[in-house]
C-alpha cells in the first residue's frame, strides 16, 4: 500500500524562489523608495515643459513650486495649514477616541458586540458628507461643523480596525494570560492591545486620510481659512496652480504622516522582525 503513497512525485525545482526576499541590508535601500515619486514628478515637469500638458490642465511642478514659495513667504500657507491641522487633529482625537472605545467594547464583549455593532454597521454606510445639511442644523456652521465631519470620517476606519484587530487575536494567548492570573484590564494591556496594534496602525493610516477628505468638504462650508478653503477659493477662480499646490501639500502631509507612522511602527512592533526572520 505504501508503494503508492510514495509513488510518482511530480517533477519540480528543488528550490523555488521565495515569495519575498529577505530583509537584509540593501545598498541605497532607503533611497529606493524615493525613486518612483521623483520619476513621477520628472515626467510631469517634462510633459508640462514640452507643451504636451497645457498649464490649464495641469501646471508644471516648477510653477506649482513657485506658487508655493510665494504663498509660503507671505505666511498664507502657514496660516491655512495650521488651521487645517488643528481641525484635523481635534477631529481625529474625538472621532478616533470614540472609535477606539466603541470598537474595543464591541470587540471584547459579546453584549457590546450585539448592542454597539449593528448601529455602527448601519451608520457606516451613511456618507457623512451627506449629513452636512443635518449637521448644519445640529452643530451650526462654525468650527464644530468641520471638526464633527473630521471626527465622523476618522471614526469608521479606526472602529473597524479596532474591532477586527481584537477579534483576530490568537485566543490561545489570551488563555495563557488568564492562567497567569491576569485580570481583564491586565489582559487588555498585555495581550489585546499589543496584539491589535498592527491593525490599529492601519486604522490610523486610513483615518488620517479620511480626516483630510472630510476636511476638504467641511472647509467649503463657511470657512475663511484652511487648505480646503484655499483650494476651494482657487477653484472658483480657476487658479489651477493653487489647486495643485493644495494637492501637493496634502501629498506631502501623506508622506510625512506615513513616515511618522513607520517610525512608530518600527518602535512598537520590533518583535515582528523576529517573526519575519524566524
Amino acid at each position, binding site marked *: 500500500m505504501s508503494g503508492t503513497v510514495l509513488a510518482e512525485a511530480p517533477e519540480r525545482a528543488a528550490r523555488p524562489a521565495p515569495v519575498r526576499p529577505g530583509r537584509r541590508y540593501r545598498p541605497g535601500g532607503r533611497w529606493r523608495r524615493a525613486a518612483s515619486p521623483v520619476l513621477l514628478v520628472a515626467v510631469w515637469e517634462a510633459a508640462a515643459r514640452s507643451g504636451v500638458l497645457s498649464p490649464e490642465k495641469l501646471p508644471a511642478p516648477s510653477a506649482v513650486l513657485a506658487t508655493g514659495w510665494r504663498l509660503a513667504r507671505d505666511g498664507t500657507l502657514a496660516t491655512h495649514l495650521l488651521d487645517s491641522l488643528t481641525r484635523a487633529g481635534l477631529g481625529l482625537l474625538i472621532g478616533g477616541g470614540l472609535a477606539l472605545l466603541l470598537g474595543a467594547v464591541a470587540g471584547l464583549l459579546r453584549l457590546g458586540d450585539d448592542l454597539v455593532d449593528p448601529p455602527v454597521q448601519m451608520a457606516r454606510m451613511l456618507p457623512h458628507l451627506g449629513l452636512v445639511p443635518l449637521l448644519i442644523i445640529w452643530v451650526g456652521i462654525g468650527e464644530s461643523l468641520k471638526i464633527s465631519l473630521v471626527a465622523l470620517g476618522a471614526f469608521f476606519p479606526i472602529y473597524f480596525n479596532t474591532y477586527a484587530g481584537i477579534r483576530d487575536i490568537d485566543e*490561545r*494567548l489570551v488563555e495563557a494570560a488568564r492562567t*497567569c492570573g491576569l485580570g481583564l484590564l491586565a489582559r487588555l494591556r498585555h495581550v489585546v492591545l*499589543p496584539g491589535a496594534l498592527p491593525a490599529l496602525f492601519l486604522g490610523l493610516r486610513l483615518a488620517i486620510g479620511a480626516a483630510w477628505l472630510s476636511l476638504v468638504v467641511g472647509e467649503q462650508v463657511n470657512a475663511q481659512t484652511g487648505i480646503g478653503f484655499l483650494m476651494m477659493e482657487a477653484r472658483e477662480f480657476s487658479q489651477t496652480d493653487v489647486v495643485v499646490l493644495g494637492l501637493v501639500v496634502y501629498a506631502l502631509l501623506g508622506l510625512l504622516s506615513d513616515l511618522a507612522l513607520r517610525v512608530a511602527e518600527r518602535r512598537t512592533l520590533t518583535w515582528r522582525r*523576529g517573526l519575519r526572520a524566524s
Partner: protein
Amino acid sequence: MATRTARELTPAPPVLTARAVRRAFGPTTVLAGVDLDIAGGEVVALLGGSGSGKSTLLRILAGLDREATGETTVHGTAAVVFQEHRLLPWKRVAHNVALGLSGPDVAGRVDRALAEVGLADRQRAWPAELSGGQAQRVAVARALVRAPDLLLLDEPFGALDALTRLRMQGLLRRLRAEHGFAALLVTHDVEEALLLADRALVLDGGVIAEELPVPLGPTRTPDDPAFGALRRRLLDRLGVPTP
C-alpha cells in the same frame, strides 16, 4: 474504570477535584466522564494515546473550557504549561516570565527562574528568536515562578534533548521537595512518568482507564527492579510490546 483515587482517605486535602467531566466536539465525545482528585503535594502523571483527550482535560481543569460539563474545583492557585509554548510574541523573554507577577523583587525572581531553566542569558530575546526547546523552557519558567499550589503541565519537556530533559526533571523534583506543590503532568515518556509521579493515570476511551500508584522512593532510578516492573506494566497498558 477505576476513576477514584485511592488517596481519598489520606489527610492531605485535595488541591483538585473533578467529577464526571465530559466534553464532546460535535458528534465525537472526547471525555466521557472523568473523575480525578489530586491531593496537596501529589504529582500525578497522565498518559494516553495521541488524541486521547489529555490536553482537552488539562484545559478543562485550568478552567478554560466553558463547553465542558461536570464539576472541577481547584483549591489554591494553579499555573499551566501548555503543549505549545504560548509565549506572547510581543514581549521579551523576561517580560513573558514576569507576566502578571506582582510582589517584591519581581525582576530577581524572574532572573532566578530563567537561570533555573538554563536561559539566564536569553532574558532580552524575543520569543520568535528562541529554539523550540528554549521556548518550552521559558514556558516552564513562567509557570514555576508563580509558585502555584497546582501545576498543570502538558508535555513540558517534549522538545528537550536528553540532557536538558534530565536537568529539568531534576529541577521539578527539587522544587517539589522544597515547596510541596501538586502537579498533573501529561507526558508521553513512561520513564519520565515513573521518575516524577506518585501515581500514573492512563486516559483511554474518554475515561481514566488505568490507575497505577508508583510506590518508589524519592531517589528513583530506572535500574530499580520495581521501576522496571512498573514500566512494563504501563507500557503494556499503553499497548506497547515489551520484550
